[in-house]
């Protein structure tokens, strides 16, 4: 299925530029997720690919052919909308077959296709129903089936799960992952939910303020965020940030700030040494801190435990480090009491440093 390339894509509404030259390449059969907070330009990018928004500048290539002047229907794509966008006056079968009927495919082929995709999404018993008589999850399935029936090379999803309740969302997410394995298509998926992005994507593109911040596999983004925004956006509970300064003492490099003094080692120490500025932000994920009374104070944080949020096997401790708040993920069995000051060992491989002015990773 086709490759898609966005070349210096710009979108302006009047004088306001909302997308500032997006460069992106999506390989064959890749599941790409555009993720970012609302207003970051991810939906606009998707709608430009779909042809629902005009391209102000730049070009979209599908298999190296420019398509930005084409109508949506000429672009060989299917789309699932956030509000499902079903045709309320047509029943499920008519909704699914609308594109095929417009294309004047033979009746037998249409019927076979409707049956096939309805089975795929589990709607066989509801083909005669109108959308008004379906639940949210069922409507979402119809939208999915309608897109599947088109047999397009490109599949676009615009926040398809955000109108569903939490439980259904999890279930549909799993089904979507299964479906994306089965149908080999180029899928582009927009969401503001980083968990959806992490679980579904072959490749995640993090957007913010009309720019691409970083793209890569979920693991790359989680382990090696290029800047503070990506680091804070990916991962739940979010990464802790502590402002500090780099100091060299007898050949070792330390990061020190209000309430902490941490010796760096390994790769991050080398990076810190090489960096010109001394003003940094220390980033540590809640899962890279572990409760350890016997930890070496040079590679540990001492925190005041204030609140414990029990979420099952894990608990999230909200702690104070100086005036900053730090979250720690611990096993719920850990003997931690509120109000205590405890030592938490820092996983050196999980230490991130960001330049305080540019916010880029060292």
């Amino acid at each position, binding site marked *: 299925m086709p490759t898609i390339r966005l070349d210096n894509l710009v979108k302006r509404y009047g004088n306001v530029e909302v997308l500032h030259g997006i460069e992106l390449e999506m390989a064959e059969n890749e599941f790409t997720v555009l993720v970012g907070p609302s207003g970051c330009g991810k939906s606009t990018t998707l709608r430009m690919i779909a042809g629902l928004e005009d391209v102000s500048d730049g070009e979209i290539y599908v298999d190296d052919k420019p398509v930005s002047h084409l109508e949506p*229907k000429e672009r060989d794509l299917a789309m699932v909308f956030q509000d499902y966008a079903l*045709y309320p006056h047509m029943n499920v079968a008519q909704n699914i077959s609308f594109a095929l009927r*417009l294309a004047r495919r033979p009746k037998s082929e249409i019927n076979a296709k409707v049956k096939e995709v309805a089975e795929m999404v589990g709607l066989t018993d509801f083909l005669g129903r109108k959308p008004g008589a379906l639940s949210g999850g069922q409507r979402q399935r119809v939208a999915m089936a309608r897109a599947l029936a088109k047999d397009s090379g490109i599949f676009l999803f615009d926040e398809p799960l955000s109108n569903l309740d939490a439980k259904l969302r999890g279930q549909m997410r799993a089904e979507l992952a299964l479906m994306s394995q089965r149908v080999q298509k180029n899928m582009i998926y927009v969401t503001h939910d980083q968990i959806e992005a992490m679980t579904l994507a072959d490749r995640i593109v993090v957007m913010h303020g009309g720019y691409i911040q970083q793209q890569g596999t979920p693991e790359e983004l989680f382990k090696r965020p290029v800047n503070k925004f990506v680091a804070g956006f990916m991962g739940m509970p979010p990464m802790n940030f502590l402002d500090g300064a780099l100091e060299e003492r007898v050949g070792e490099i330390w990061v020190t700030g209000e309430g902490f003094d941490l010796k760096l080692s390994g790769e991050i120490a080398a990076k810190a040494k090489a960096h010109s500025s001394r003003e940094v932000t220390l980033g540590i994920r809640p899962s890279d801190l572990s409760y350890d009374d016997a930890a070496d104070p040079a590679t540990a944080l001492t925190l005041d435990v204030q609140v414990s949020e029990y979420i099952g096997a894990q608990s999230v401790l909200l702690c104070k480090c100086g005036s900053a708040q730090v979250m720690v993920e611990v096993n719920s069995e850990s003997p931690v009491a509120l109000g205590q000051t405890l030592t938490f060992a820092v996983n050196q491989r999980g230490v991130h440093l960001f330049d305080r002015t540019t916010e880029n990773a060292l």
Partner: protein
Amino acid sequence: MRTAMANRLTPYMFMAPAAIIMAIALMYPLGYMVWGSFRDWNPSQTIGEAEFVGLKNYIFLWNDPNFHESLGVTLRFAFFVVTIEMVIGVGLALLLDREIRGISLLRTMFILPMMIAPVVVGLMWRYMYHPTVGTFNRFLDSIGLPRVDWLGDYALTSVIIADIWQWTPFIFILSLAALQSLPRSALEAARIDGATGWQQIIHIKLPLMMPVLIVTALLRLIDAFKVLEVILVMTEGGPGLSTEILALRISRTATEFRELGVAAAMSNYLLILLLLLTVGMFAFNRWQEARAARLNALVEEES
């Protein structure tokens, strides 16, 4: 106990003024008319002096060729007016449902005719249709075409054109409102599914607008049956009976022929016709609500 009683009565007390006004301004004259329609009643008599004749007025009208003619004119007028207005009004709405420069000014201009008093509309069109000095014939003269006897040979057509000019905007604004409340994403989905502009109109827009269009058409139909002033001013029902719609015939029967009983009976026939339409409209609304409720019930049952 007393407060409970007072609470229960409160809504009725709030409704009472409206109910009293309705009774005085609507039910009383209506009852008077129904009562009068069973009498041989001359304007010089009080209603008590008029002789009771039972259904005589109704039977007379049932067999009266002039009444038939008038009813026919009314039906033809209403049919053509509503059909053509619907087509043009909905068409305009489909055309103007877009963001282009000056569109709001254009929309405002389109609805201006609706705001002019019917008598003024009648006078305006009578002048424009005038055989010698009217705008239309002067125009035909200037481009070398023969004159047309607008309010003579083509009286009904001319009257229909004037009504279309005045009332198309009504359908236009309602259709436009309906169009703009359609779900945008469904239309976008249709574009992606490969629907052309026409196909979007036929398969998505019109079906989704249909409930509004049906109510609009019924409202216009009811109005078209009651039209009076424009035609009265333009043709006074002539030539012959060619534009004598029912409302006009009723007024002439009462004033010129001085037969109040017959006029009342004719009004009742018209009233029955309008009631049928209104009931039809309510039935349609109820049917739609019932359908929506049934669908909701079905969903809740399953979840």
